[in-house]
């Protein structure tokens, strides 16, 4: 049986947030007397993550995804509840725990700006107590996997965003951690760079059986990497389970556009019991439930002589958009 690497029980976090009225009067009032309000950003959440799993955290901006990740890696103290990561209380930040995890943030960087990434790699290697030969071997292995060779010898400030992100990944993985926390790792990258990064993460997960917790606003990251998602809505978990089940639940039907040989055929097809969305001349669009899709399609192909056929799936972004605004999903 695969063991749990992360166990979270009844976790809550509150922050003191100041608010300010607009205008000069508001600014002066804010300077002398600040209005502070305690806000519960994470509300009583519980979940477990197994070794080797890739879990995506989905949620709108400000839903609390990054706060959860930061509590999991020990950067923020929880207000209530408990967290165990690889058997450790993260906020104690013990050396063994820190050597086992890594955090990668798409919008923040740890590489030394004026120097080539290789210098940052060796600096990190010395911090993680890795000897020079071993560090060299790991840099070679990871740079091969990430497909960066010459770039690691060019000053960071001269690298493209994609090359920089790859170098960030290498710097963050030089100690071969078993648990990866990735906060929007593909932010701002072009389509090819995003794909390469995803390919790398899949490979890393396969080769090392590392557990990966990921947040991203690019749905392709989630759909191609994560079998399981945890949806966060205003600090609470609205769904925790398999992504494909959620997608089926939220998108229970498919649309088929059929081009018939004549208008007569199209009308005939429309009257054969399918739910018709629209019909123009010899073209007809029908809606079929997912569980009846194969049998219905077979029936159409057997009964009617059709010219062409298109299957339209609703865009994934649209479906995920629905997830972000709903409070609870019972599936």
């Amino acid at each position, binding site marked *: 049986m695969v063991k749990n690497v992360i166990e979270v029980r009844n976790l809550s976090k509150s*922050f003191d947030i100041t608010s300010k009225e607009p205008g000069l009067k508001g600014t002066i009032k804010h300077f002398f007397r600040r209005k502070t309000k305690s806000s519960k950003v994470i509300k009583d959440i519980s979940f477990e993550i197994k070794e080797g799993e890739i879990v995506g955290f989905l949620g709108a901006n400000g839903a609390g995804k*990054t706060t959860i990740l*930061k509590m999991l*890696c*020990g*950067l*923020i*103290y929880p207000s209530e509840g408990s967290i165990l990561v690889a058997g450790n209380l993260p906020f104690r*930040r013990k*050396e063994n725990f*820190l*050597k086992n*995890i*890594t*955090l990668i*943030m798409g*919008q*923040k*960087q*740890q590489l*030394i*700006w*004026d*120097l080539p990434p290789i*210098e*940052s790699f*060796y*600096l*990190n290697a*010395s*911090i*993680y*107590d890795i000897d020079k030969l071993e560090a060299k071997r790991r840099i070679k292995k990871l740079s091969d996997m990430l497909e960066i060779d010459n770039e690691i010898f060019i*000053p960071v400030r001269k690298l493209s965003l994609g090359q920089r992100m790859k170098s960030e990944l290498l710097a963050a993985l030089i100690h071969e951690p078993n648990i990866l926390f990735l*906060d*929007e790792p593909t932010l701002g990258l072009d389509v090819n760079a995003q794909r390469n990064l995803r390919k790398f993460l899949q490979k890393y997960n396969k080769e090392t059986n590392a557990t990966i917790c990921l947040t991203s606003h690019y749905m392709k990251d989630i759909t191609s990497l994560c079998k399981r998602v945890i949806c966060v809505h205003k600090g609470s978990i609205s769904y925790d389970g398999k992504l494909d089940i959620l997608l089926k639940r939220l998108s229970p039907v498919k649309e088929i556009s059929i081009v018939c040989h004549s208008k007569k055929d199209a009308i005939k097809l429309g009257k054969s019991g399918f739910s018709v969305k629209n019909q123009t001349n010899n073209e007809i669009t029908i809606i079929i439930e997912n569980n009846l899709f194969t049998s219905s399609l077979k029936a159409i192909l057997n009964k009617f002589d059709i010219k062409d056929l298109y299957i339209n799936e609703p865009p994934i972004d649209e479906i995920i958009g629905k997830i972000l605004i709903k409070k609870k999903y019972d599936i």
Partner: protein
Amino acid sequence: MNPRKYLKVYAKFLHTSLASELEYKTNIFIDLITAILSLIGSIFLLSIFFQNSLNIGGWKFEEALIIQGIYTILNGITNTWFNPNLTEIVKHIREGTLDFVLLKPIDSQFFISSKKINPSGFLEIILGLCLLILCIRINQINLNLSFLTLSFITIICSICILYSLWFFISTTTIWFVKTWNATEVLRSFLYIGRFPLNSFSFSLRIFFSVFIPIAFITTIPSEVFLGLSQLWKISLEVIVAIVFLTTSRKFWLFALKFYTSASS
């Protein structure tokens, strides 16, 4: 704590920050000129004070130059180590990059206090040392073992007090987020350290001894140089240095519990 690992990491810090700084040659050149002009300006200012009087607060011009020498060394140390690192804490906290520091298996205080180095501060240290050597000749100071030991101890204590004050203020960034002004206030107080403590009024002397221990930073080491210091003063400086170091350490660990990281 593994001292070998920390030495190795510090060697890497030195290497990377020197390499970073050397990328900008003109900047280093300007810093070097600033250091020389600043020392000349300070000596000129001191000489103006002594124009109408042979001694101020019991200090002759040649003796006051020792304080200037020690101040220049300490200012050099501040510019070489404290300034680039401790002002960086403010940036780390504002931008949330302290996350990376806290997730490294190394002491976070060591990391943020020693990661960077500004090589142009070395010139100030060298200039200060030259001025001290000159003062030793002018004042005909006898260089014996006890003198060297006491000077070394008091200067080390001064560095510790200075570091702790700097670090203490930088730590408050965790709550107040922006504390550039506070470090600037401290810097202007340190300018006062260029002058003998006795030249100030009694109330200011108390203020600079108790609240902001400028007196301990420059005057006591200078008194040691002139053989004027009493043992109780040196012992007090050692105690103050230990108290400041431990307090700043505890304060840092306490403050980290309130670190909320920057939003993404």
